[in-house]
C-alpha cells in the first residue's frame, strides 16, 4: 500500500548540511496499523512530512499503491492529499468557524465530489466515534479528545488509502487519548483503514500491529506485536527504546 524506499533528507542550516533521514525504507500493508517511535530529533516528523510531500525529499521513492508521490506536480499532489491520504495532526487543525459536522465534511467539499452523500457519511462517522451529540457544536466548545476524534473522522471521510498521524495524542490527557486510539482501532476494524502513526507514547504505540523505531535518521528496528498481550508489547517497546538510548550514551 505505502512503500518508502531509501528516503534521504537533509536540512541546510547556516550553510551546513544536516542529514536527518539517511535512507529510510519501510512498508505499510493495507489494513495495517503501524507506529513510528524514536527519540526526539530522530526525524519522525520529517519522515511523515516527506511522505505527505509537505517537504520535498532529496532522494528515494515514496510509493502509494503504484503512484510515485515525489514525482507529482502541485495540483496532482493536492488531489492525492484530498482523496488518497487522511491527516491527523497533533494540534487537530480544525477550522474554528465550522461546526464539527461541517469540519468532517470539508475534504469532500474541497474535492467537490459525492456531495449529496457526504452528510450521511459524516453522520455515520460521528456515530462510530461517539460524537453525534456534539456534531452541531463549534470546535471551541468541545474537549480536546472530541476535537481529535472529529479530526480522525475528517481524515476518514474520503476513504483514504492511508491515514497519516503525527502525535495524535500528544496534546491530550490519557482518558481522551484512549478514546482517540479507540477511534483509530474502530477505523481499522470496521472500515479496514490503513494507519501510519508517529508517536512518543509507548502506550499508544502498543496498540499498533507493528512499530518502527527510528534513530539518527535510520530505521533501527521493527517490532511486530503478533499475538502478544498489549502490556507485554508495551514492555518490549520500552525495552528496545531504552536499549537504543543506552547505546547512544556509551
Amino acid at each position: 500500500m505505502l512503500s518508502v524506499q531509501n528516503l534521504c533528507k537533509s536540512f541546510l542550516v547556516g550553510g551546513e548540511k544536516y542529514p536527518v533521514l539517511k535512507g529510510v525504507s519501510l512498508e505499510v500493508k493495507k489494513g495495517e496499523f503501524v507506529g513510528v517511535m524514536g527519540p526526539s530529533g530522530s526525524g519522525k516528523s520529517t519522515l511523515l512530512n516527506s511522505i505527505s510531500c509537505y517537504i520535498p525529499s532529496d532522494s528515494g521513492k515514496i510509493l502509494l499503491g503504484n503512484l510515485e508521490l515525489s514525482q507529482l506536480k502541485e495540483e496532482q499532489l493536492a488531489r492525492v492529499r484530498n482523496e488518497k491520504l487522511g491527516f491527523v495532526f497533533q494540534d487537530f487543525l480544525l477550522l474554528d468557524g465550522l461546526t464539527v459536522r461541517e469540519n468532517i465534511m470539508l475534504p469532500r467539499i474541497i474535492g467537490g465530489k459525492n456531495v449529496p452523500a457526504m452528510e450521511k457519511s459524516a453522520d455515520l462517522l460521528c456515530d462510530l466515534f461517539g460524537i453525534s451529540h456534539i456534531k452541531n457544536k463549534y470546535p471551541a466548545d468541545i474537549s480536546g479528545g472530541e476535537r481529535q476524534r472529529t479530526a480522525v473522522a475528517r481524515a476518514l471521510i474520503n476513504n483514504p488509502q492511508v491515514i497519516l498521524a503525527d502525535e495524535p495524542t500528544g496534546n491530550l490527557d490519557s482518558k481522551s487519548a484512549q478514546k482517540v486510539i479507540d477511534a483509530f482501532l474502530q477505523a481499522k476494524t470496521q472500515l479496514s483503514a490503513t494507519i501510519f502513526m508517529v508517536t512518543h507514547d509507548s502506550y499508544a504505540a502498543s496498540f499498533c500491529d507493528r512499530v518502527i523505531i527510528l534513530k539518527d535518521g535510520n530505521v533501527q528496528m521493527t517490532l511486530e506485536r503478533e499475538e502478544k498481550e498489549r502490556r507485554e508489547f508495551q514492555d518490549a517497546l520500552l525495552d528496545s527504546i531504552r536499549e537504543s538510548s543506552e547505546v547512544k550514551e556509551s
Partner: protein
Amino acid sequence: MKNLTAVFATLRKKGRGQYLLLSGCLFFAVLLITAFSMMMYSPTVQTVLPQGGDSRKQVMMIFVLAVIGCGAFSLYAAGLFFRYKSREAGVLLALGMSRRALNRQLCREVLGLTLESCGAGLILGTPLCWGIWSLFRLFLVDTPEMLFIFNLRAYTVPFLFFLFVLFLLLIMENRFLARVNVLDIIHESHRPEPVRAVPSWYGWGGILLIVLGGSLGYFAPSFCVRVLQWYAPGLLTAVFYLPALVGLYWVLLFTVVGGWHRGKRRYAHLIESGMMQFQGRQTVRNMLVVTVLVAGAYFASFYTPMMMTSSQAALKNREADYQFFYRADQEMISQAEIQELAQSYSAQVVNYREVSSITLAIDGETEVETEGPMGVTYTVQYQEMRSEGRFFSVSAWNTLARDNLTLESGQCIASLDRYGYPSSISLVTNPVTGQSLKVETLPSPLSSRLLSDIYLLSDQDYAQLIQGLTPEWQEVQVVFDAENDSYALAKDLFHRIVESSGPETAVFDGYDRISKMNAEKAGEVYWGDQVEELNLPVIDLTRPDSSSFRTNWLYMPQFQALDEGDFLSTYAVYLLLFIFISILCFAAVSVILYTRSQSLILSNLWVYEDLHKLGASAAYRRKTAQGQVKRVFLAPLLTGTVLILCFYLLILLGNGRVWGIDANEAVAFAVCLALAAICSTLFYLLYRFTLKQAWRLLKL
C-alpha cells in the same frame, strides 16, 4: 453547505471581526480621502489658497502625508487580515485543496471586500464633506463665498487610491498564498528567531542626530540665501533634515526594543522588551509614519491659531479707527458724505484728518535672479529707480499723526515696512519729470505705527518734487476715529469706497509701477501683469467681500470695526481646511495605533499563554500587555508632539526683528499648547480603550 463558496461564506460570518477591521479601515481611508479631495477641489479653497502659494503647498504636503497614512493603515489591516486567514488557508491546503482553488476563493473575497468598502467610502465621502462644511458654516463662520460645490474631478485621487489599494491587496494575497506553508501551520510551535541587537548608543545618539539634523535643516535654506545668495531647490535643502529622520528612527527603535530602563530596573520590563526584539523594527517603521503624521496634524492645527493671534494683536494696536487712501484722480466719497453716512448709523465721526501724499521712485538694491541647473541664484544690483515709495511732507504728517517732527532739506525719515523692518533710501525721483533729489535717511525710523511703508520729506523738498507730477501719482490719505460706530457702518463705508474706485485701481498690493517701467524698458513683461500665468490674486471690484479682495487690494481700507467683524471669516476657509486636515491625520494616527497594538498583542498571544502556564498572575500579564501597548502609543505621540512644538517655538523665536518671544507670540504658543493638551487627552482615552481591547483579547 454544499460547496467551497458556502464554506467561505460560513467562515466569513464566523470571522466577522477580522473582516470588519479590514473593510472598516479601507472604508475609512477612502471616505477621508474623498471628503478631503472634494474640499480641495471646491472653488472656495482653490481661490483662497493661491496656486503655487505656500499655504497650498503646505496643505498639499499634509494631504499627501495623510494619504500615505491612510495607505499605511490599510496595509496593516490587510496584514492582520492575512495573518488571521493563514491558519484557514493552511488547513485547507493540508486537506488537499489546490492552491489555484484557494486563490480563486481568496481573490473573490478580497475583491468583494475592497469593492464594497471602498465603494461605500467613495459614495459617503461627499456627504461627509458637505456635512462638516455645513456644520462649520452653521456654528463657526459663514461667508458668501463658502459655497460647497460638487466637483466630479475630486474623485480622481480617491479613485486612484482605491486602485492602488486593490492592486496592493491582490499582490499581498498572491504573496500570502505563495508563502503560506502547511508545515508552519502544523507546527504552530514557534521557531526561535534570530535577534538583531540594538546598540545602546542608539538612544542618546539618536537625540543628538535629531537636534543636529533639525538645526541643519532649519538654517540651511537661509544660509544658502544669505551667504551663498542661492535659492536652493527645496528638495536639496530638505536633505539636511535627513539626519533628524535617522535619529528619530534610532530613538524610536531604542525606546521600543531596549527601553531606557537599564541596569537592574530593566528586569521589571524584561518580558515586554523581549517580545519587542522581534516586532521591534517593523513596529518602529510604523511608528515613524505615526510620528510624521502626528507632526503634520499638529502643524495643521497650530497654523490657524498662530495666524489668528498675530493678526488679532496687530488689529488691537492700531492707532486710528478708520483710515484709507485713494488716488487723487478718483471721485471719492467726501468728508461731508462720510459724516452723513455715519449719522444715518447714529455714529459720530471725530478727529477727521485728510492730507495728500505723492508716489515717487526710490533707489535701492534688487536681486537679479538667474535660473541655473542648480536652482535660482541671485546677484544684488543697485538701481536708481527701483520701486515706488509713498511720501508725505513733514507738516502733512504732523497734521495726520499729531506729531511735531522737523526736517531739514535733503533729509528723510522712513517708517518701518509692513514686516517691521526699517528701510533706507538715498535718491528719490519724480517718475513723470525724471527730476531727482539726493536724500539722507535719518537713522531712527518713524516711531508711529499709523502707516507703514511711507517716507517723510521736508516741506520744501516735497514742494519741489511734486512739480509736474500727474494726479495718478498723488494720493489722499484719510484718517479719523468714530464714536458709537458699528460693523454695518464700516462695511457700508467700505462698499462706498470700492464703488467710487475706478477700474485703474483694481490692483493687488504688490503691484509696482516703477518696476513695471523697468521691466518694459528691459523689454520684458512685468510679472505683476501676468496674473493668470503666475496665479496672482485677482482683484475684482465687483466682489469686495471676497477674501482674496480683502487681503490683497492695494487700497484696502483699514477699518477697525470691519476687520474685527470679518476677522474670523477671512480665516474661515483656512480654519476649515486645517481643521479638516488635522481630523484626517489624527484619524489616520488613531487607526494605525489601534491596529498596531492589536496586531502586536495577537502575534504575541502564545507568549502570554506560556506566561500563564509559568504561573504569571493575571495582574502581571495585564501589566505586560499595558507595557506593550504603551510602547506603541507613547513614543511616536510624544516625539511628534515635542518635535512640532519645538519647530513652532523656533519659528516664533526667529520671527520678528528680535530673537525672542513677544506677548502675542506667547499667547499663540499657549493656544498651541492647549490644543496639544486636548489632543493628548483624546489620545490617552484611545490608549485606555485599546488597552481594554488588548486585555479582552488576552481574556484578562
